[in-house]
């Protein structure tokens, strides 16, 4: 590297008071604010998951009571879905990196960006309060009429939390969409945009169009629970299945809010460490949009055994198969990108390899569930649990960590230990498979999900699963350790430690408060490694 002197003025040290952080309008700082809250939620969700896995090591319900168990898996789901998976990549990495990547000084509406964070925190506090004052036990899906009539846990408080947090997601989506339209540096045409930006754009679309629906649904649930409106409860003349339609109309697309941004991250990291342009750039870019749009048309695949007509089930099954194609296209393009690359095995790239392996299993097992004849047997069993963890944890979280390892030197100006980064990726990969692969088998055997106690014959597989979860826990803890350590003792990273092409690497690390000394002018595509004179610095 040419320079190893840490830059004098950066967005981190320009002001250091607590107020300067809490009132910041700098997208980079806001990204870090999100990082703090989301990491806390991840820890919390992880602790709940540990409770679940300990309980399930024995067939009897002996570690915690049935009511506690039901609260544990519910709060695990709520914390992880609404406060980790949905915000992790867009709000942390997107906030930090996207304006840099398009050569902007900030997002289009910096104040709204800060507001989004506060809205998010307020939503989180409500949910946290619900958890502290006894928890919630409806499952993260809040199915009626259990949630509206039967449950005597903090459904309302949790609902309000989720409702509020939703607005943060909408605001971020709007902000990003306008930013991508209006704030691109000169020469940054649409087809020169990094694929992460394309993915964020598609995600924003889903956030803006989908999130209001969950907000309305939660509101209706609250009206029924608090004031006895008969919307979902058949005793009041409502329809319980209507809730499921509304819920999944958002929550299926929400899966894409969670997975599209990590897919974008994968494209960035993969291109960088293969020293190549992403194979089929426009196919990868448009597949994100296709997924975002078609993702809105498959919600009823969660209702195949919930009394919908067999013909509508057929249509939704067909569309669910169709939406799998763009994801397959992405995966093939990633694999092809490696062909004749110059593949540099650094820690972020190891996370990418892990992502590809796990996402592949997650995506392909989705085909089992889209198959009507198989879904009848598999619905609401551990097969489903395993499937969506492969997508959400194996895909989204692996992708998030790939991105965090990739941009960490840019965020902090410091390098972490590459060896430990690689080790953590491998630990997480092995631990993850050990945790969730047995659950596919459990599911086909017929073990239903959300069971506090279970028949004896399922024990061995459950013990394997819990063992894997311990390994996962160790892996995640390790990451926290070496990343935090790097803040003190990490080597200085320099502007471009990976030799990457993106604009974010053209400015110092950590960047200036205003990102670039001069607005960059873009003259080529995002991944023109080949045009480079073989060697950087």
């Amino acid at each position, binding site marked *: 590297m040419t320079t190893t002197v840490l830059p004098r003025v950066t967005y981190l040290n320009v002001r250091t008071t607590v107020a300067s952080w809490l009132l910041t309008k700098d997208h980079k700082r806001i990204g870090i604010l999100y990082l703090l809250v989301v990491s806390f939620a991840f820890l919390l969700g992880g602790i709940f998951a540990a409770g679940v896995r300990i309980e399930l090591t024995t067939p009897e319900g002996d570690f915690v009571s*049935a009511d506690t168990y*039901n609260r544990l898996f519910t709060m695990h789901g709520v914390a992880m879905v609404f406060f980790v998976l949905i915000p992790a990549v867009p709000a942390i990495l997107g906030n930090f990196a996207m304006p840099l990547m398009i050569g902007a000084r900030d997002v289009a509406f910096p104040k709204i960006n800060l507001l989004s964070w506060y809205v998010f925190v307020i939503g989180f506090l409500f949910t946290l309060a619900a958890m502290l004052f006894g928890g919630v036990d409806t499952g993260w899906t809040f*199915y009626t*009429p259990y949630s509206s009539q039967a449950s005597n846990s903090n459904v309302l408080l949790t609902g309000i939390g989720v409702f509020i947090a939703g607005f943060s997601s909408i605001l971020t989506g709007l902000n990003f969409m306008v930013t991508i339209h209006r704030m691109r540096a000169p020469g940054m045409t649409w087809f020169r945009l990094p694929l992460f930006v394309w993915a964020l754009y598609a995600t924003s679309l889903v956030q803006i169009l989908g999130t209001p629906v969950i907000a309305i649904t939660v509101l209706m649930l609250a009206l029924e629970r608090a004031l006895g409106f008969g919307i979902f409860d*058949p*005793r009041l003349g409502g329809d*319980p299945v209507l809730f499921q339609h509304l819920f999944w109309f958002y929550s299926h697309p929400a899966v894409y809010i969670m997975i599209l941004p990590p897919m974008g991250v994968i494209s960035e990291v993969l291109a960088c460490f293969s*020293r*190549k*342009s992403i194979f*089929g*750039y426009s196919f990868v870019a448009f597949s994100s949009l296709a997924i975002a749009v078609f993702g809105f048309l498959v919600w009823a695949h969660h209702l195949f*055994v919930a*009394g919908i007509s067999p013909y509508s*089930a057929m249509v939704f*099954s067909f569309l669910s*198969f169709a939406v*799998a*194609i763009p994801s*397959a*296209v992405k995966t*093939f*393009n990633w*694999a092809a990108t*490696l062909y*004749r*690359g*110059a*593949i540099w*095995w*650094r820690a972020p790239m190891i996370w990418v*390899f892990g992502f*590809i392996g796990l996402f592949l299993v997650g995506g*392909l097992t989705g*085909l*089992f569930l*889209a*198959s*009507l*004849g*198989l879904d*009848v*047997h598999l619905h*609401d069993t551990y097969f489903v649990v395993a499937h969506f963890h492969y997508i959400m944890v194996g895909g989204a979280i692996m992708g998030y960590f790939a991105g965090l390892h990739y941009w960490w030197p840019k965020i902090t100006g410091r390098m972490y230990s590459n060896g430990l980064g690689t080790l953590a990726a491998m630990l997480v990969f092995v631990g993850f498979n050990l945790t969730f692969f047995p659950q596919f*088998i459990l599911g*086909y*055997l*017929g073990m*239903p*999900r959300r*069971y*506090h106690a*279970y*028949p004896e*014959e*399922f024990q061995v*597989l459950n013990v394997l699963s819990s063992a894997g979860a311990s390994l996962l826990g160790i892996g995640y803890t390790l990451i926290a350790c070496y990343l935090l350590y790097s803040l003190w003792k990490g080597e200085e990273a320099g502007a471009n430690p990976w030799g990457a092409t993106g604009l974010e690497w053209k400015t110092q690390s950590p960047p200036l408060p205003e990102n670039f000394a001069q607005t960059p002018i873009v003259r080529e595509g995002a991944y023109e*490694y080949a*045009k480079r004179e*073989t060697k950087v610095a």
Partner: protein
Amino acid sequence: MVSGIPLFPEQASTLAPEVDNLYFFVTAVTAFFALLVVVVVLVFAVKYRDRTGEKVGAPIHGSLPLELGWSIIPFFISMAIFAWATLVFFHIVRAPDQTLEVYSTGKRWMWRFQHIDGQAEINELHVPLGRPIRVIFTSEDVLHSLYMPAFRVKADAIPGRYSSIWFTPTQVGEFHLFCAEYCGTRHSGMIGRVVVMEPNEYQAWLSGGGSGMSMAARGEQLFQQLGCVGCHLPDGSGRGPSLLGKYGIQETLATGATVTIDDTYVRESILTPQMKLVAGYGPVMPTFQGLVNEQGVMSLIEYVKSLPRTGGPPAAAQASAAGAPAAAPAQGPR
């Protein structure tokens, strides 16, 4: 403790092998693609590894034929899976014509099964080997889901509606019966067993239960107690239409639409009579919501089913009038 790890569930119904064959096919196809991608990624990652990080990759940007190939081929393969899976699905949801019917209600946290001959059981379901069985059920409170993994069938129990599953057991023995839809505290305790018996043992079991009245007879009793009989005269001269031989036929509504008189329709006629008026009749039938419970409604349905197409009192009604328990399973063709 368990010896060995179970990897595959028992196949105990005619549907099970159908579902499993599909499962093997999908497993084979997906395993092939998973391995293909993993091998390609690993081979490339090793073959093109650059330890220095200073080289650059070949200037390759994409290939239209490849893109088309790996969009179209997976599309056709997935359509093959889709078609096969849909066929299997229609077998699962379409019951054959001749089934032995059992009614059930899910309630936190137990399953109650009601045989049409009168026997009722909790969390246990006795059925004969080799006969198609159809379980018609609803929920009395929140959502539940009736799931019998060995038969590969499942459907949600939804309050206010009927769902059904059917299966033909192919193996004598005891099999799990689970609630698959989360329903609160003792969701994981809402389990039981299906006992599949040789037909003659099943007959013995049926007559041994000795609970007395068949469902149709119980339904007839309700029909009188609740005053239905006052309006629904057999010759059609009452304020309501005659119900003789109505079950299973098409009814024309006041709106001009036609509906098939099935379990759900009869249920709605009793609980929300104003919703679907029969052509030519006014909205005079009162609702019986709160006056009759789910089991009562099911008995009334069974009674309506038992009413013959031509005049004359039904067999079940005669039996009950004589006060004798019905001995033979009195399920009729639908």
